[in-house]
């Protein structure tokens, strides 16, 4: 690919970046995350420390589950602890939040 084409694509990339930033800025109001356990509001202003950890970590890679069977919650969080690199304390607070 010649330099001109490369430049054109980079320009397109910068332009789409600007569009996305504008979109983000335009949606001025805080929006709760789309998903989370049915009984929770996953905003950053969450009062429960476990809810806060859930909101900050569980939508980083994928849509977080709306509900989890308490029977499997411990197992799933062990699995996600290695992925999300959560501390033991975070895991404990999340367990209390997801399976009180």
């Amino acid at each position: 690919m010649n330099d001109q084409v490369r430049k054109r694509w980079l320009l397109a990339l910068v332009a789409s970046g600007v569009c996305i930033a504008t979109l983000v800025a335009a949606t001025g109001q805080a929006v709760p995350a789309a998903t989370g356990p049915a009984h929770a509001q996953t905003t950053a202003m969450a009062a429960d420390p476990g809810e806060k950890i859930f909101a900050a970590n569980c939508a980083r890679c994928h849509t977080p589950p709306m509900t989890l069977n308490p029977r499997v919650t411990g197992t799933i969080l062990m699995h996600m602890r290695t992925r999300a690199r959560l501390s033991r304390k975070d895991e404990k607070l999340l367990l209390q939040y997801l399976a009180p």
Partner: protein
Amino acid sequence: MTTQSANRQIWKRKLRLIDRCTLRKTIGLLVLPSCILLGSTVGRAQDDLRAHTTAGYVPVISGAFAYIQNTSGGVQSLVPQIVPVLLAPMGHSLLLESRVEFTGFFQRENLPSEPFSGRFAGKVYKTVDYAQLDWLADSHATIVAGRFILPFGLYSERLAPVWIRNLQDTPFTYSIGTNPYGAADGFMLRGIAASLPSASIQYSAFMSAHSSTNELQAIRAVGGDTSFYVPSKRVEAGLSYQRTLEGYQINNEAAYFSWQPQRASVDLKAEYDRNHYGDGYWIEAAHIPQQFPVAPDFFRHVQLVGRMEQFFVRNGGGNGLARVNEQRPEVGLNFQIRDDWRLESSYGRLFSHNGNSNTWNFGFTYRFIWPLWPGRKS
């Protein structure tokens, strides 16, 4: 022997020596902290997590079913997939996890009169993605042994599962850092290197041995990954490095960024990858129009995706990468029917020195989580 070939021999020996040194150092790096951690955790009373929660630890089969119909350059492929994940905890600190992928790949057969116009034919491929034992020793370290996905960049370890990826086409640079088998057979140490209330620094370091065992093939390699994460801003930026130590000994590098701004339901992810054979990037934005003025309950389930990617050949390319420069803008429209079911559709336009073409994908994914036995009721 000519001076040139003598020099080459000397260099080869030096390189072999460096590799052995690197390997020894890496083993040292992994074994030393492991021993310290083993010492510090053995005998320490385990947190009684169950005292405060009803959470159970029964073995689980999770994973996904998917069916994707792909049309690239006018050629149709049917790709059904079943990907079970086994999770078997042993106490609260040991987890056995394994994922096997069964992927069917069916295309129309070539007829003498016209290519790709016969009946559908193909086969099912089986891959052991990982089969590993995790010892969740401490907040700062999880020790992993067995076969694990190479911790390289954002895509392979986190976004590749069929129910997670927003667009079904894998990025052009996917093979950088994962070629040829995508997984390592060896040891990995990962965890949080430093944790402040406002940010944390995460790391992983691994070494892989050569294996030619069927389904468990791997090459000798060392590498690592580090990233910092700011939870309040939901921003993560990281770097990955990997050196393959057999065949063509090359470096693979990646830099990545991820951001989920709280002010809008947008998920931004980007990755730049580079090795001897090429370099390239992808940048992806996904948006859920939660506050759509009309029918917000419907639009809450809709996901709009856009991705741009470019690949630039170096030294002839190949080795899992294209041999010509390529770029592809791609858009997707997904519909999350329920937490576990998702309808997928996407369109991409490939611009390549070998010719331009369209790529279409339609299909669905289903994610499941099944406890293997009843366990304790809440």
